[in-house]
């Protein structure tokens, strides 16, 4: 009655759903094939370009942090397929509750460069207006957003809406009570919510085996969720599973769970040094499963013009990068007023006092500087 899963077993089509193999060959994958039968060469090329763009977005983020323009950056390198495959499966009115690493999903939402970088620069507590892009702000407290997603999805259900909610989190997050509670609530109310777990094998320095002795997807099944375990480096498999899961939750049959098995190729954040805890060999192994390379290889088998594609994707990525750099140079620093704004939605006498006292204090300095004190 005990599980026999060994989390170190090698992953492959036996352990997860895969549509495109690392070498670019196309598998038959009955469970989900139908969900991507519309994806023709131009659509595949678009997905490739998306992935190339967010890979560039990510390397720009790291570079900007190195140059002191950002306070911190959380790289998504290696997780492009998981983010683009799912992000492109969503409808506009589906609402996203992300963690902190979903720059790629935000990109799918059309979040502009200013808003993408604002929080990482330390210029504001967050980036975008959630209601403009149907995506909540980054969540740093591990797992907390999954409950917001469950509540939002309950609201969708009460409203009779056909939209769905989706929440992103990592393998480490699955240990948090909040994530389990979110599954309990979503299942209890049969809410239209997709749990999207990017199992990138690491929670900072801790391997996924510390969090679970079995497959994460199996845990979700135990909560009564419809589950899909997919190759998270296979953009088509991810897209197919996400579409399937969205369709499932839209029918009112309860929440769904996707475990996208992927790998964090970079550091946890720019403050992290992964050489302290992980093996170069593991990285090599996963480099061979690269999400972009495999789509390129697959497109090659379909006779696509790869050179032209790389030119196009390079140009798109260059444009995005230029936008990011421009955003950084034009981003205004926050003002003292931003300190006190929005703590409450209407005036609070205690805080007003503090704001005014601080203004007086600062004015004193200004006066002193002008020699008028």
């Amino acid at each position, binding site marked *: 009655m005990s599980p026999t899963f060994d989390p170190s077993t090698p992953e492959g089509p036996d352990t997860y759903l895969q549509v495109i193999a690392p070498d670019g060959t196309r598998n038959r994958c009955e469970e989900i094939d139908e969900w991507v039968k519309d994806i023709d060469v131009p659509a595949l090329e678009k997905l490739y370009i998306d992935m190339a763009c967010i890979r560039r977005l990510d390397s720009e983020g790291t570079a900007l942090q190195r140059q002191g323009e950002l306070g911190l950056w959380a790289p998504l390198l290696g997780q492009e397929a998981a983010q683009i495959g799912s992000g492109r499966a969503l409808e506009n009115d589906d609402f996203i509750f992300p963690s902190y690493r979903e720059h790629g999903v935000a990109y799918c939402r059309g979040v502009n460069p200013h808003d993408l970088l604002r929080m990482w620069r330390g210029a504001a507590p967050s980036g975008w207006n959630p*209601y403009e892009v149907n995506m909540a702000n980054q969540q740093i407290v591990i797992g907390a957003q999954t*409950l917001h*997603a469950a509540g*939002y999805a309950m609201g969708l259900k009460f409203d009779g809406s056909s939209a769905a909610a989706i929440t992103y989190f990592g393998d480490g997050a699955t240990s948090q009570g909040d994530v389990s509670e979110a599954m309990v609530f979503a299942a209890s109310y049969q809410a239209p919510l997709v749990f999207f777990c990017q199992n990138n094998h690491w929670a900072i320095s801790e391997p996924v085996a510390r969090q679970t002795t079995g497959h994460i997807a199996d845990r979700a099944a135990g909560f009564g969720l419809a589950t899909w375990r997919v190759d998270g480096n296979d953009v088509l498999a991810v897209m197919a599973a996400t579409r399937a899961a969205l369709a499932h939750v839209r029918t009112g049959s309860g929440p769904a769970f996707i475990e996208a098995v992927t790998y964090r190729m970079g550091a946890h954040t720019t403050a992290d040094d992964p050489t302290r805890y992980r093996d170069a060999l593991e990285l090599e192994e996963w480099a061979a499963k690269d999400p972009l390379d495999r789509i390129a290889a697959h497109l090659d088998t379909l006779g696509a013009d790869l050179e032209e594609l790389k030119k196009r994707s390079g140009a798109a990525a260059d444009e995005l990068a230029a936008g990011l750099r421009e955003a950084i140079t034009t981003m205004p620093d926050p003002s003292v007023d931003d300190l006190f704004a929005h703590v409450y*939605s209407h005036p609070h*006498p205690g805080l007003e006092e503090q704001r005014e006292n601080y203004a007086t204090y600062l004015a004193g300095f200004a006066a002193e500087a002008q020699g008028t004190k």
Partner: protein
Amino acid sequence: MKTLTFSQALNTSLRASMERDSKVVLMGEDIGKLGGVFRITDGLQKDFGAHRVIDTPLAESGIVGTAIGLAFRGYRPVVEIQFDGFVYPAFDQIVSQLAKMHFRSRGNVKLPVTIRIPFGGGIGSPEHHSESPEAYFAHTAGLRVVSPSNPQDAYTMLQQAIADDDPVIFLEPKRRYHVRGEVDTDLVPDPGSLYRAQVVREGTDLTLVAYGPLVKTAMDAAAAARDEGIDIEVIDLRSIEPVDFGTLSASVRKTGRVLITHEAGKFGGIGAELAASLTERCFDHLDHAPVRVTGFDIPYPPSKLESHHLPDLDRILDGVDRAMRRTPELLGEEG
């Protein structure tokens, strides 16, 4: 004008809020058929349906977390935490999410969530059923914290809290649930009055500040002190955060003495903030240091000992005597 118990006033208030705004939903454990363990939601699920009076799974972080999600979606959730001592599993969602979302989202996301907590002791319950957690919430920027002391305020303040676009922690003095009082259900309260303190008894010798369960005790103490020739002004704080320092300071400047009482432990309790702030605001008018009469700094004791722990008339009068310099100071203190 109707005569209602404190709990009926709350029930009527919830009903009025739900009738007024279809986005108001109630959430909590056992609030449906059972009407909550204190029956505050009695009959509401029957009348409004299970989508508006939502029995939740047994998980407080889940309740508050999903309430946040519902608010994100435009709902106005009113959460019931079954007892004070069971709010702590939700602490992270309250402190890191509910309190900070408006600031985090730069004003884009409003979370008009009301968290109702039956709080305080005096009902002979076991551990975790008699706590006074107000200081934790009041110290948390982004939250507002209020506590009514009588049926009229229960009725009015709860509707105001629900209508407020900020998250409000609404502390209900559970040992006063059965108390009856006149309630004007037609009263249209002043906007902003939710956050105002009220002078419930005028006096000249000492300002006695209480809230929630102890306002009645404070009034009794004032009556008893009158017999000893001490004329006490009693203030019902009503709003614990923000504090209506205008009303409090005016009183203290008049009386020169202040006593603050609450059931929560003394160290780092609301009394500390009130004493410190009133000293800052009224130092030159003070004839004595602000006096605090509070619960001890112990876990809430078993019920056979709770009468010792809870400030009562005699302990408040003892504090009054100290403030009036009629009795020696406590250990470590000076007059």
